[in-house]
């Protein structure tokens, strides 16, 4: 039980949030309504996705104040809990790509010779900027027309239609194509949360003294380049690409990893 604590917590959070969104439409619940693009918490507090908001602003449309305020609230929230905490604790696609990842490990597809690394991890930042440029040129939010995240979320709330194909495509790409292909290489939304995460407060801390260099954490980590300090230095994982998923903490048998408040003074 101990070694799946954060995994369980995350699944409960992810599914719980989806149930709240689903109930808002199906039963008129007033807790969390809307979709990730823009939501309403308890019927009063506006929430909005910062990258979606930026895309609409890039088109030149002057958005309603509710969306702007909502984007600020969300940006601040993830500044506290770790930028890409969205990716591992909220985003429904995470469940799809985690399943793909698990399957890769079971099918022994993780070896270098079957992992097609034809995309670099920083491609997502290019895509993020490109999304804003395309939004400005074409005049509609470009990522939103193909975002598997909101397609999956709306699918659960309102029905999938043929949108399910996009989810399946991402699953296949992650299993048979690039390891962590979507979340770790392409997703511009994750990239935007990475930028917030660069400065965020709650981070994973590594204790070099306790570490026995078993490297279990690196096997399970979806962004394992962020764990460069393992068995080297006792510091926080400061890379914004860390999703704060806590899997490394779960699998660590030496208590060498834990969540803690980042120390801004010590460099």
């Amino acid at each position, binding site marked *: 039980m101990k070694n799946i604590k954060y995994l369980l917590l995350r699944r409960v959070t992810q599914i719980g949030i989806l149930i709240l969104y689903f109930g808002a*439409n199906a039963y*008129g619940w007033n807790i969390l309504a809307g979709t990730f693009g823009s*939501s309403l918490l308890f019927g009063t507090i506006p929430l909005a996705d910062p990258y979606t908001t930026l895309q*609409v602003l890039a088109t030149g449309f002057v958005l309603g104040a509710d969306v702007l305020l909502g984007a600020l609230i969300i940006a601040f929230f993830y500044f506290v809990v770790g930028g890409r905490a969205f990716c591992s604790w909220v985003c429904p696609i995470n469940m799809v790509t985690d399943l793909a990842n698990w399957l890769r490990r079971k099918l022994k597809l993780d070896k270098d010779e079957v992992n097609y690394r034809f995309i670099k991890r920083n491609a997502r930042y290019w895509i993020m900027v490109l999304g804003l*440029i395309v939004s400005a040129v074409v005049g509609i939010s470009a990522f939103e027309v193909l975002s598997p995240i909101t397609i999956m979320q709306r699918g659960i709330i*309102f029905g999938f*239609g043929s949108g399910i194909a996009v989810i399946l495509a991402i699953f296949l790409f992650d299993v048979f194509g690039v390891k962590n292909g979507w979340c770790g290489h392409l997703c511009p939304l994750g990239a935007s949360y990475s930028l917030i995460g660069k400065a965020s407060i709650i981070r994973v801390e590594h204790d070099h003294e306790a570490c026995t260099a078993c490297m279990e954490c690196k096997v399970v980590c979806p962004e394992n380049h962020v764990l460069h300090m393992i068995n080297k230095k006792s510091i926080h994982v400061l890379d914004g690409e860390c999703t704060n998923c806590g899997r490394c903490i779960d699998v660590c048998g030496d208590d060498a990893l834990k969540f803690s408040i980042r120390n801004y003074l010590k460099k």
Partner: protein
Amino acid sequence: MANSDNNRRKFMATTLQSVGLTALGGLLWSGYTDEVKASPLVLRPPGAIKEDDFLTACIKCGLCAEACQNRETNLDRETGLPKAGTLKMAKGGDHKLIGTPYFIPTEVPCYMCEDIPCVPVCPSGALDQLSVSNDKGELDINKASMGLAVVHKESCIAYWGIQCDACYRACPLLGEAITIEMHRNERTGKHTFMLPIVNDNACTGCGLCEIACVTEKPAIFVLPNEVSKGVAGDHYVKGWDKKDQNRVQDAKEIETTTELSNQSSSDYLNSGDLY
């Protein structure tokens, strides 16, 4: 020296590659995005701004559709659960911009709720509350213009001379949006044609007429404003309308001359091609 030269070459090549691939991606992405937004035959919720701007502004949150589905008037009397609402969220395969709200009158028309639950919840400004408010700032659904009902007179049985006023009776703006025009039926010599006429200034495009229509495929149907309405243009002025006359109050006279060709006019009179 050779090594640093190599490094520079490699750096230049990677930069060029990244820029090139980004440009390629951008072109494909732009093309795709531009293609998916082209769907003129779609009815939007009340208060929706002009279709082009609507596609830009809508943040695809679905709050309007949720408000529509969960309005008090939509609860099933027996189970207490909401029925299917008017507004749907476009999903893959609907061939409309994905995630945007729309409705199909023959499935569920807009019932024109007086409190318009779908509009005030819009956070982005895609649904404009002012456009469905009266001068006192109160919500007024009769101001909505979601589309315009159009009658296809060849399939409308009232135009055949059969007595039917289903659309007229179903219209929430009874006697305003659809009026009945009477004409003598010369074929029988003793009956009246009672023809439904849609009045653009009152019709909101709710679609209640379309679902009420008795023909196999409705002879009256709602089309979006962009496709159902013509534009006369600025240069036509209603000389009998004081307000319209004001538009040309300050107009200056411009004299233009068109040179006529004597040759062509005489040719066409003599060529025998008049009919």
